[in-house]
């Protein structure tokens, strides 16, 4: 996949790759191995169309995982990413379909709604000193309920908003390079990833994110208003979930109010597979991206091999463990 997207953002990707090397996110190797194995075992796996399907499948979980990465690096955890995504999708549905507002407003509204919810979770954590797990668990339930309330427990379709589905299904790249019809959803994923890793590695916010995750008290005693930064981090993550909400609703051309439960686990899994520590203080976006890809490749590959579904689950479990194990081993060596 990396090679494919090089065409659209070469310097970004090359930077990401450097970082990979730098941060020793060796899950990358496991990803390559997986791709190799599947292409050998199934002729149908390594087709452009299927690669695109995999990327498409990665886009939503990938964006969610990026949001989760920010929070996790800062030493917290966010269980609300999944239902927050759903909620923002519903919000944009209400704005666009029920209120007939123009498309940009829907998109903006979703992202703002996401940021606001993130802001709330952040305040619970920073101001009310509620453990992130509980704060975001509560938020997850609240949003799950609200999505049903706001949408009246029915999917909201975007049929009267022409072009909404293009946001994720269309392909700008495809129009320029017809042989490479990468869906915009994937493009957006990589852009979000690029921006996020830039923010993490190059800005004050990013530095405090790592600092707070590594030793919050030390940062506070350096005269930093850690509470405000924590809230900012959760809000940013929320906004990113808003983007995920746009992606999924445009892909389904509808806001599905019941969706999103259990997605938080997959997102967090991608983060951890990507080498980010749940203890906080260390992690990379590129790692998360690779983690998300590993999961997508795995699921898709096993389906293409049409393995019986119950065995798909078993194998996924085994391979996730092995992938991380391989990673660990290499880290040990490199130590």
């Amino acid at each position, binding site marked *: 996949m990396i090679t494919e997207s090089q065409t659209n953002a070469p310097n970004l990707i090359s930077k990401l790759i450097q970082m990979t090397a730098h941060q020793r996110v060796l899950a990358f190797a496991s990803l390559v191995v997986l791709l190799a194995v599947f292409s050998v075992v199934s002729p149908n796996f390594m087709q452009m169309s299927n690669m695109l399907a995999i990327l498409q499948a990665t886009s939503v979980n990938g964006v969610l995982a990026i949001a989760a990465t920010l929070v996790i690096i800062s030493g917290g955890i966010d269980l609300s990413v999944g239902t927050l995504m759903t909620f923002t999708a519903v919000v944009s549905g209400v704005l666009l379909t029920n209120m007939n507002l123009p498309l940009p407003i829907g998109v903006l509204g979703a992202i703002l709604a996401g940021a606001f919810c993130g802001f709330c979770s952040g305040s619970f954590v920073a101001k009310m000193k509620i453990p992130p797990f509980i704060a975001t668990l509560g938020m997850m339930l609240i949003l799950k309920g609200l999505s049903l309330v706001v949408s009246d427990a029915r999917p909201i379709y975007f049929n009267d908003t022409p072009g909404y589905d293009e946001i994720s299904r269309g392909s700008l790249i495809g129009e320029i390079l017809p042989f490479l019809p990468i869906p915009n959803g994937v493009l957006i994923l990589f852009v979000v990833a690029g921006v996020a890793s830039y923010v993490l590695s*190059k800005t*004050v916010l990013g530095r405090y994110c790592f600092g707070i995750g*590594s*030793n919050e008290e030390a*940062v506070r005693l350096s005269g930093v208003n850690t509470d405000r930064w924590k809230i900012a981090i959760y809000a940013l993550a929320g906004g990113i979930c808003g983007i995920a909400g746009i992606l999924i609703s445009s892909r389904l051309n509808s806001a599905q109010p019941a969706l999103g439960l259990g997605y938080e686990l997959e997102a967090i899994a991608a983060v951890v597979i990507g080498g980010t520590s749940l203890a906080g*203080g260390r992690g990379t976006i590129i790692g998360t991206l690779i983690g998300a890809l590993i999961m997508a490749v795995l699921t898709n590959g096993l389906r293409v091999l049409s393995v019986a579904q119950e065995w798909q689950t078993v194998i996924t479990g085994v391979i996730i463990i092995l992938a991380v194990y391989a990673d660990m081993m290499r880290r040990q060596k490199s130590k």
Partner: protein
Amino acid sequence: MSLLVEMRGIEKRFPGVYALKGVEFELRKGEVHALMGENGAGKSTLMKILSGVYKRDGGSVKVDDKLALFDGPKAAQNAGIGIIHQELSLMNDLTVAQNVFIGREPRSAWGVIDEKRLNEQASDIFEKMNFKVDPTVEIGSLTVAKQQMVEIAKALSFQSKVLIMDEPTAALNDIEIAELFVIIRRLKSEGVGIIYISHKMDEIKKIAERVTVMRDGEYIDTVEAKDTPLSKIIAMMVGREVKDETIDIPDLSNAPNVLEVKNLNRGKEIQDVSFSLKKGEILGFAGLMGAGRTEVARAIFGADPIDSGEIWVNGKACRISSPKDAVTAGIGYLSEDRKHFGLALGMDVRENIAMATLSKFASSCGVLNEPEMSNVAHKYIEQLGIKTPSDTQEVGFLSGGNQQKVVIAKWLLKDCDILIFDEPTRGIDVGAKAEIYKLLESLALQGKAIIVISSELPEVMRLSHRIAIMCQGKLTGILPGGKATNQEQIMAYAAQ
């Protein structure tokens, strides 16, 4: 005379660091053998190899003339080697007694622990050291000093025949140090061999028979303590003469007060403390452990809420409810506990140095200028002689003393008008100490106001223009610094 420990040609490499280059070391029965060297010389690493924490890359270790290949701490323990690590390694959520006996709990067949006996046994040990602490309190609630004493008690409880003490006194003050020396002498008489690491030079003369000096991971020499002058040992450590000439106290009679603390109160720990600090002044804080100096500092800095009292900066009363407020008001505080309150161990040297000043390096939209950060970091790495492979090395991998230097760099860079240094030279080698003293003096001359809290009286007396003494949360007196005051006078106020 039989050798307890014999280490020959010990090699150790870390990524980017050649920590030990063929180090020699030997220890006799019933001797106290001091291991000296600058920060980062490799002392702790050598001891971690002897105690089975690290695996050596080369060389041989003999214990009781038997080749020893420790595959872990347990193996070293069984071979009779006990160690007090430089960095506290405690389980904060467990009680004092539970910490001391972790892994060796008195238990019944079914693994049921006899908590009563556990606490009794702990109390016994503390009695012997005549160190007063309740074995049933959570250790996390004790001060660094008390925690250090518990670590010592723990090491003693193993009754090992080799006892390694890696800077046991860094967090202690004279009284506790005296207690510790009593214990050490007793152990000696029982034939225990003791390896003693410290940067407090005067201690060497007091208890060590022999001194082995290391520099940059290399073995320099082993000498008899009594017939080698300190200056020579220091020279061997640093590789040059270190002279620390004092300058005479400037006249600050008509300098303005930059900081005034009025009737500060916080629980039992701070009781009605008032004092003022002049521009260009160095105010020393002396006192016994638990005197409350750290509490005063933390209160001024807004790290802990206060019950009552006012803090005036430059003649204006200001509300300080968080460290952020304090820093905005131009106050900086270097904590006595670098590991918990000073450093983000997971981050690199550069980031830690810049932690308090990030915004200075950031553009309007918050993008950091990393080259600039590196330049500044290098400036302090030079100035303080921080021993690190690069400015992007993880601070956690630095030696204790070098970590302390990084924290100091952070606050020097912050360039506050009022600096509060709590145990600034804890674990820092002689050479660097002299450097830091000079630094503080030059800062004072530039018109900064500095508070130095230290448990080392000589240090307080060496640096301070005035000396404030605390006892049990009260400020008991303020004496003139320099030659004007002697230890006895200070102790009189400290132990009221």
